[in-house]
């Protein structure tokens, strides 16, 4: 009896990790192809989001910096930067996933590498620290923190220009 339960628990852990990784990558396909509802479906109604920059200089504002409480505020943020469906504007490459699960809660760390080209070609890079809860069998984001390492014009590079505001 004990052995069977521990097998099921171990498989459930692997399934949960995979589900959360796939949530993140599905999020990127929705975002990069302009599917706002597809993006927002991943968040709890009372989710909180925070965007900042690593080692930020006082008084200098990073791109999209701020705190966004609740799905409505989060939706506003995404709507303001939503990529187009039929033209490349940004690719969110989500890498180096480290996901830990504890029952119906989980945490994930990921790197973002983001080539973008709204008005000009840029490189963005940063780190996500995200918390999830399982609701009716589906994982959802409860807390989304993103910290820029750099957001730099393509011709400058990240040593010369660590941060250019996107708005």
């Amino acid at each position, binding site marked *: 009896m004990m052995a069977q339960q521990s097998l099921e628990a171990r498989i459930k852990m692997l*399934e949960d990790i995979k589900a959360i990784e796939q949530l993140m990558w599905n999020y990127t396909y929705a975002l990069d192809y302009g599917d706002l509802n597809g993006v927002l479906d991943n968040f709890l109604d009372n989710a909180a989001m925070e965007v900042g920059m690593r080692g930020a200089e006082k008084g200098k504002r990073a791109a999209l910096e701020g705190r966004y409480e609740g799905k409505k505020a989060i939706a506003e943020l995404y709507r303001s930067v939503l990529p*187009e469906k039929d*033209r490349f504007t940004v690719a*969110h490459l*989500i890498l180096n996933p480290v996901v830990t699960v504890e029952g119906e809660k989980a945490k994930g760390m990921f790197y973002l590498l983001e*080539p973008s080209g709204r008005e000009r070609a840029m490189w963005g890079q940063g780190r996500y620290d995200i918390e999830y809860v399982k609701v009716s069998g589906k994982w959802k984001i409860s807390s989304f923190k993103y910290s820029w390492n750099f957001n730099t014009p*393509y011709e400058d590079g990240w040593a010369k220009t660590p941060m250019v505001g996107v708005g």
Partner: protein
Amino acid sequence: MTQQSLEKRITALEAKIRMLEDIEAIRSLMWSYTYFLDYGDYDKVMDCFIDDARMEIRIRGSLEKGLHVGKYEGKKAILEGVYKVTPQGKDRFTASHLIENPVITVDGQKAKGIFYLFSPGGAERAIWAHGRYDMEFVKVVGKWKISFFGFLWNFLTPYDEGWAKTLMMQM
């Protein structure tokens, strides 16, 4: 616990493990494909496909001409029409196909996968390539193979220009 309920639990567990193994096997197939391709081993590249595999390459949002754009039916057409047209070097770097953001769903002996390509490349001239794969796979004698290879270009740009200036260079 009866013998019957024990067997039922094991069957359920086996199905779950098989799903996880299938997802890992397909990830491994895609990443193996990139090593075969980037190091010029075309026999092994073609081994990733079933004989009557189909390939379709398009450009996002436009009908412009672009590298390899078109439909290819069967292994021979795919090899001659796509892979042999821009050969990858064995002994020197020509491209590294970095495949990320894998989303794989398995349904018995069939599967689908979405992946991003983000690739530095170019022997004479440095380039960046980026696109999205929409793939279909089938399991043949215990091995996963590609049955449909869909690729949608986002950009193919010279390094010194960048993707805002040039979305699709002509080659």
